């Protein structure tokens, strides 16, 4: 029945005193409660599917490791890569159905995604390749990106989108390692930190893109990972006295306040709380680095405490003034 027709019918029965306002409201509430209970049981089923999936993965991994020496090469490949392909095929079959069975299909796709890299490594190891080598890692990650990017376009499931992003990040790290080729002029630690920083910025842009196409949960997840990537590495790049890097120590508060400003602009609480947490981390680091020797620890703690209270109030003020009504 069309919405307008329905409303017309309600108006008619109300004008005829056939139904009271309370009866209508109670009928409406019952309908909402029924939908909620259906949704809750569906969510519980989904959680159980994924917990079950995790147990299946654990079982297969234990099976492979405890029987590794007893299995021949074919058995090893079958147990790892074969299981991954079987889980994928099962996921594809179950995804053709609706709701509850569809969710089981997603759980099998998840199992496949965890087993697939293990399967690739076992197969390549048996083929005699050095699985620690950057080239092998680049090949495995590129293959997985291809599989899950195609899967996303075929099934339009956001699980594949998450997997494609995760394996693309791995591909990015292994490809840059392959290009660098164990070069001794690169400081391996710094190289890793700068790559993580760049990936963090990429995640923030990706999060913004998903917020524009109304995928808020996905967007917030990317914002959280992106902020961790940017702020944790920027804090590490700042170093510690006497090996500190003044550029990163000076630019860090600017990055934090930019994040807090963005939280107001985008009306997003992840940026506000993330910015506040990383500002607190910075205050603690700087206090211990520069003030604990001159003023002593006790006075430094007073300074840090006052600064943290300031950050707390700023966060509360911005939240109340600009983000009070936003969902996240």
């Amino acid at each position: 029945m069309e919405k307008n027709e329905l409303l017309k019918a309600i108006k008619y029965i109300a004008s005829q005193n056939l139904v009271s306002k309370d009866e209508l409201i109670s009928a409406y509430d019952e309908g909402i409660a029924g939908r909620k209970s259906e949704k809750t049981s569906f969510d519980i089923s989904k959680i159980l599917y994924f917990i079950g999936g995790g147990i299946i993965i654990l079982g297969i991994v234990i099976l492979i490791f405890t029987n590794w020496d007893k299995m021949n090469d074919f058995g090893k490949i079958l147990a790892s890569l074969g299981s991954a392909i079987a889980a994928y095929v099962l996921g594809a079959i179950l995804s053709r159905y609706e709701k509850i069975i569809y969710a089981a299909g997603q759980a099998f796709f998840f199992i496949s995604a965890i087993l697939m890299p293990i399967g690739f490594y076992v197969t390549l190891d048996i083929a005699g390749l050095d699985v620690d080598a950057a080239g092998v890692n680049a090949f495995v990650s590129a293959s997985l990106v291809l599989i899950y990017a195609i899967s996303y376009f075929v099934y339009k499931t956001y699980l594949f989108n998450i997997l494609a992003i995760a394996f693309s990040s791995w591909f990015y790290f292994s490809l840059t390692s392959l290009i660098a080729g164990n070069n001794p002029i690169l400081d391996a630690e710094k190289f890793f930190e700068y790559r993580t920083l760049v990936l963090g910025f990429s995640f923030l842009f990706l999060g913004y893109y998903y917020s524009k196409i109304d995928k808020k949960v996905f967007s917030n997840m990317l914002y959280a990972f992106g902020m961790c990537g940017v702020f944790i590495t920027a804090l590490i790049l700042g170093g510690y006295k006497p090996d500190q890097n003044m550029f990163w120590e000076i630019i860090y508060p600017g990055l934090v306040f930019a994040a807090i400003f963005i939280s107001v602009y985008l009306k997003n609480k992840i940026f506000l709380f993330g910015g506040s947490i990383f500002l607190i981390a910075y205050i603690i680091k700087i206090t211990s680095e520069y003030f604990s020797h001159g003023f002593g620890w006790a006075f430094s703690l007073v300074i840090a405490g006052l600064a943290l209270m300031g950050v707390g109030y700023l966060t509360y003020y911005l939240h109340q003034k600009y983000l009070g009504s936003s969902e996240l």
Partner: protein
Amino acid sequence: MDYRKNAPLIAAIAIPILMIIFVAVAIYVPGLFKHPTYSFLYAEGYTSGIYEVKNGTIAKVEYDERTQNYYKNREEVKLYLYDVAKDQAREISLEDAAKLSLDTSRIALDGFTIAQGRRTSLFDSNDGRNLFAINGSVSKELNVGIRNYSFTFLGWIK
């Protein structure tokens, strides 16, 4: 395609790609214009107590019997001559190596030094099997594979 709507997606993909290009350029481009010009002698394995370079000539260290017994179980040390013109290394005997005049400075007259590559995993970093000629920001991988990861530089060929 709506470029304005997709601008953040384009930026998200472009940023790591630019980083990959930047790494490739920083690693390979400086090496296109500067090349090492000196050949050198090196050993695979630890030469300490076996060979020594004195007055620009390599020689076997002579020990008493007891010390020789101490060193005899160590892995065999092989000598190699890296030819910079051919970009390849060949094994040479001690007799041939003793005919070479060596400069034991770590840095050659052209500014290059020799360093072993790094094997980096998630948790640690060790000496690798490959060798690099390094001069400031220039690094060139040499066509050399160190069999057992242990490398000893013995000197530049004068």
